[in-house]
């Protein structure tokens, strides 16, 4: 499947936006960018590497772009795990956000129950013809953990040679203890 590369999955969704939608979306995205709790909420979805929303007023062409009868909302995500787990989490963890965003699109049935939501995404989804990841074997959690491991290891590396063996062992064990959830 072209939407899958190793542990990573791609989602690409495009939906037509109601006339009031662009104004609502502008406010919703402003809040998401500027209110810290919004970002924290997204970070709870710890399986998302990258995700973006974009509002398309004109589809680019050689000239000024092609305007259709409505603006279109593009959603794109790179995540680890299965498609079903992803939409389940959207439905359960960030239901209000999903309603605020996709609620501006025609045909959106709401984030729950989850089955009509999944049908909606499926109907409006585009399959990637080619998909690439620089680290297809890694989950988002592993990448963030590896950063903490590198910091802890770097701190011990810097002083390892100067310690007595017993002091080194204590420092080593303390280092391992501090990152035990990251290994």
């Amino acid at each position, binding site marked *: 499947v*072209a939407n899958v*590369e*190793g542990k990573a999955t791609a989602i*690409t969704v495009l939906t*037509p936006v109601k006339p009031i939608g662009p104004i609502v*979306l502008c406010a919703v*995205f402003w809040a*998401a960018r500027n209110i810290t709790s919004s970002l924290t909420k997204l*970070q709870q979805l*710890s399986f998302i*590497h*990258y995700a*973006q*929303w*974009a*509002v*398309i*007023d004109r*589809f*680019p*062409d*050689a000239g000024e772009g*092609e305007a*259709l*009868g*409505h603006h279109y909302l*593009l959603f*794109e995500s*790179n995540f680890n795990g299965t498609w079903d787990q992803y939409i389940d989490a959207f439905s359960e963890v960030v239901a209000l956000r999903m309603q605020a965003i996709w609620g501006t*699109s*025609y*045909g959106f049935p709401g984030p729950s129950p989850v089955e009509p939501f999944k049908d909606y995404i499926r109907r*409006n989804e*585009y399959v*990637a*013809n*080619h*998909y*690439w*990841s*620089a*680290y297809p074997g*890694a989950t*988002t959690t*592993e*990448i*963030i953990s*590896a*950063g903490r*491991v*590198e910091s802890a*290891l770097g701190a011990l*590396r*810097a002083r*390892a040679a100067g310690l007595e*063996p017993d002091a*080194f*062992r204590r420092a*080593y064990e303390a280092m391992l203890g501090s990152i035990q959830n990251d*290994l």
Partner: protein
Amino acid sequence: VSSAHNVSGQAYCLTVLTPVIDGREMRLAQLLDRLPSGAQSPLAGVPGTHFARWAVMSDVVYQGPEQGPREHLAHARLLFTSNFDGALDPYLEALRTGLGASADDIWGNCIGYPGSAQASGFARYLRHHQINSALFFAAYGDRTVSDVTRSLALRARLIDFAVRAQGMSPSDLQAGFLAEFGR
């Protein structure tokens, strides 16, 4: 027109929608479907790319009478998205040189594509067809591809070392650690 929010930390979210030459849609989709994946992907030759995809969009999806009359794109679109390290201009040049002949094989199916021989024309074409993000989420937007791959490798080595080092005397442990990780 919404303003651009294509950056999170040092990560950039590039979205390009180019019109496909009439009659070339199937050929383009098949070409992309047949590109080798993983390390053989043409995108493997473009440094700093975390995730990227191409998707052929034949048309927009109609949501029913609530939306009003049916809407159609005058031309199918090719979507290219990439989450990459650093600024746009150097990345567009990395795409041009890194994709090699694949750039022309792919975008050569799009209206107005000038070819990759000239850096300025190639960059201008992609910029002209760029869509700006309204909200871009990056779970580790401060980390480059090399940061990610380096720390993942280090984490794997530490796990391996910690298993091997169980039960070692303090001096063996220290010597082993220094041999494995240096300073």
